[in-house]
């Protein structure tokens, strides 16, 4: 209808005094979306207390205020069908919610009290601590092999850096954290200088100023030193096998890239991602070769940005902005007897991709997908607001405009050059989660071909290709493969 409207109404205001930022997307809708983002997160956890950022946010979102118990807050929100959600990543902590404009005043009062006047009650603290421990040990380590594999990949690649632990923290870290630690973290990092206020929808014109004024009650500055995230180089392919009882093997592999939104090669790598295939794109190269033709698993995808909770989501959530990103391939669980073959196939495909780039015949489609899929990514006002906040973090125009202008300009050669420059098929970290780790290790490091048996007939060219794949050299020596029992990780 009016494509320019978003660009015109999108503005970022920075006050000279308080330094908080406001991202506002006014519309005539009767719904209002709120995102209150603090540029802090798990990367600021003290070394001996991983999980502090997450517990602090959980305590605000799922605890009482100075004047209200948590139960009273839930009861007041129920007739509005509203709630406050919290999301903690390495560099961003986000509180988000939606309300009908009828209830905006009541909702905002609750939200404001939750974020500015926390109750810090012991019984709330005990509950959110239990929740965090269960999310880490039961939800992630116990029941979600794919997510565990992805998170271990990040932990391995960023070991020794501020990103070195999962956003939820570690078991020992959570145990050690006290209520006083939460209060100190809140005072230190929940500041105006870290704050981005996001509002979208049919709120009154005065709302952004009012929120800004209210949140000026927060301390002005965060005195923490600037974050430095420099992952160590990898000199050789390496594998971590997390051994646990499971009927299948989940795998992830990747390496850090020096490219994030706003960097010159980001648009080109986004086209590369579109060709390899993000989640659910059944025409993606990886999906086609691994699932569609060979039926080895449910799907296979590639990403150039962090994408947690992927098995529950069709699209990545916003406000996971980071100064350092990785390239990763996500191989959904495969039967154990197909694990080493599937890994070889993924490595074979990656090698092929890095060497030859995107075929000319597929280039335009990959470009068009990258440009147009932004509309799906930002289909809700809430997602659009989240992307606008991320754009403020990265210092780029609104995401749709940025991708639209930058990607459409790209030539085939430019994209393939960026692929050769930033992507590679060696010096990778690989993580596998599953049982029979010793057998898998032998298959990955041994010289015997790992043949694959299908339960239906396959075309001749595929069987020919399989003969190459089954012997594909993973360049792994026994010392490159580490086996870790599952109860030792995230401890």
């Amino acid at each position, binding site marked *: *209808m*009016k*494509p320019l*409207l*978003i660009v015109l109404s999108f503005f970022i205001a920075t006050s000279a005094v308080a330094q908080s930022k406001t991202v506002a997307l006014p*519309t*005539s*809708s*009767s*719904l209002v979306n709120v995102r209150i983002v603090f540029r802090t997160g798990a990367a600021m956890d003290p070394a001996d207390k991983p999980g502090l950022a997450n517990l602090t946010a959980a305590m605000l979102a799922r605890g009482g205020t100075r004047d209200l118990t948590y139960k009273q807050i*839930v*009861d007041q929100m*129920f*007739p*509005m*069908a*509203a709630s406050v959600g919290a999301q903690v990543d390495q560099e961003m902590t986000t509180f988000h919610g*939606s*309300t*009908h*404009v*009828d*209830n905006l005043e*009541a909702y905002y009062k609750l939200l404001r009290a939750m974020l500015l006047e926390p109750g810090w009650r012991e019984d709330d603290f005990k509950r959110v601590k239990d929740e965090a421990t269960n999310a880490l040990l039961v939800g992630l380590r116990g029941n979600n092999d794919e997510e565990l594999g992805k998170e271990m990949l990040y932990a391995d690649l960023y070991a020794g850096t501020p990103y070195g632990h999962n956003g939820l923290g570690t078991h020992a870290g959570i145990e050690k954290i006290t209520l006083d630690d939460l209060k100190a973290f809140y005072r230190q990092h929940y500041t105006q200088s870290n704050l981005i206020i996001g509002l979208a929808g049919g709120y009154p014109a005065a709302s952004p100023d009012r929120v800004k004024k209210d949140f000026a009650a927060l301390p002005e500055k965060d005195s923490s030193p600037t974050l430095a995230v420099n992952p160590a180089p990898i000199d050789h392919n390496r594998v971590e096998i997390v051994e646990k009882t499971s009927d299948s093997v989940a795998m992830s592999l990747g390496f850090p890239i020096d490219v994030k939104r706003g960097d010159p090669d980001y648009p080109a790598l986004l086209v590369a991602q579109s060709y390899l295939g993000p989640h*659910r*794109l*059944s*025409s993606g190269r990886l999906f086609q070769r691994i699932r*569609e033709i060979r039926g080895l698993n449910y799907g296979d995808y590639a990403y150039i940005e962090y994408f947690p909770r992927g098995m529950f989501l*069709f699209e990545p959530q916003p406000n996971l902005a980071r100064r350092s990103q990785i390239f990763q391939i996500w191989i959904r669980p495969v039967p154990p007897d197909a694990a080493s073959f599937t890994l070889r196939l993924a490595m074979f495909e990656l090698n092929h991709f890095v060497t030859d780039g995107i075929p000319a015949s597929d280039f*335009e*489609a*990959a470009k*068009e*997908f*990258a*440009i*147009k*899929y*932004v*509309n*799906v990514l930002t*289909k*809700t*006002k*809430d997602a659009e607001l989240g992307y606008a906040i991320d754009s403020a973090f990265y210092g780029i125009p609104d995401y749709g405009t940025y991708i639209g202008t930058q990607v459409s300009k790209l030539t085939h050669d430019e994209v393939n050059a960026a692929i050769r420059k930033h992507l590679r098929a060696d010096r990778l970290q690989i993580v596998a989660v599953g049982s029979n780790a010793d057998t898998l290790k032998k298959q990955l490091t041994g010289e015997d071909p790992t043949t694959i048996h299908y339960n*239906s007939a396959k075309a001749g060219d595929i069987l020919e290709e399989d003969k190459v794949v089954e012997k594909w050299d993973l360049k792994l020596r026994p010392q490159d493969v580490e086996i870790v029992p599952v109860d030792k990780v995230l401890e």
Partner: protein
Amino acid sequence: MRHHYSSNSIRKFACRLIAAAMLLALSPISRLRAADDRAFPFPYVQEDLPNGLRLVTIPTDSQNLVSIYVVVQTGSRNEVEPGKTGFAHLFEHMMFRGTELYPPQKYDAVLTKAGAASNAFTTDDFTAFYTTFSKEDLSQILAMEADRFQNLDYAPEVFKTETGAVLGEFNKDSADPSFKLEEVLADTAFDNSTYKHTTMGFRKDVEDMPNQFDYSRQFFDRYYRPEYATIVVAGAVDPKVVRPLVDKYWGNWKRGSYQAAIPQEHAQNGPRENHVDWPGPTLPLVTIAYHGPAYSDTDKSWAALDALSTLAFSDTSDLYEKLVIREQRVDPLAADFAPHFDPGLFVISARVKHPEDIQYVRDQILATVKQYQTDLVPSQRLANVLAHERYGFALSLNNSQSVAVTAARFIALRRSPDTINKLFALYATLTPDDIRTAARKYLTDDERTIVTLTGKGGAQ
């Protein structure tokens, strides 16, 4: 685009989306603004083509996104012939098997270039196919969708391969105890209704699907006809532009003549019980179901029972606080009264932490039902529940795709989004007495079926 899901997964979240209510006068929070009084606030255009196809175009405030849902009013409810259950769902799969003009690879390539999200699902009452994409591809997507609805073409080998995938899906679902429970509940509670089988169908019929190529063509010929279909186009669209495109691509679709004689259920006349012995370790499940009324936007019964499911069994209910939070014997507890074309089941289910509590939990649920037949619910509590449903519904309409899918679900019942506003107007008139009257009329011992499930060793 081969990521289908059938009614079983859909039903679990659909009920909350659709369940909705309003009671302005009693609402403790401010009144809805006059302009937003209609629950479905979008100015839509509804048109019928000469061949019987219906088009509903819904402009939203989206700048560039369009979501198309093609609703076929054929679900497992239409599977009336013995030995042929599960075909509506199988057909959802077959619709991705291509035409002469658009073989699967070409179909996928168009969707890729359109940056589209696409999928399909089947329920008891309908099958829906959707594509969400950028507005400039509207003409191409409408043409491609029109092609597969009219010219679907697949070889016997392709059909066989896909029946294997459907059996695989059946097996995957069967690994879930709650699917088995749902299957046994439907089979126990119903005698004549086609709701006796789940959307997946009876296992023996699913296993026999590879031999039913000819029947599959007949199924397509009967039901994939314009008089069964409604196209919903929501988002950055102009109805004046959409109509000529639909005329052009869908106008030649030939009307059919088939009408299934769908049997009606008789009164149950006495409580029933059944039990499932699950072969593996799992937590016990207790399900208590009652025959309820069909969906209606004029009679209060369906709306009253839907409100009752939240009042009595949702996470703010007294029973939830007792069993889940205080005593910690159950997790989770929920009730579901999904809208159905024919009379469906009001289902209360609980997962019990310890097998020795099964009888206790069952008694507590039955006592709660009794209580709603005896006492009047406090009007403030009813007001809060109805406000919650009303605002939850409003908040769910937050993008073109959710606007389209919500319209599609109601179109499956009454073939028009108008029924949403009628339903919400009905909710607005609900009183505590309506809730009690509905509980007394429908939640009776004679119409009750209880199914329990226990695992090997009885626990986890």
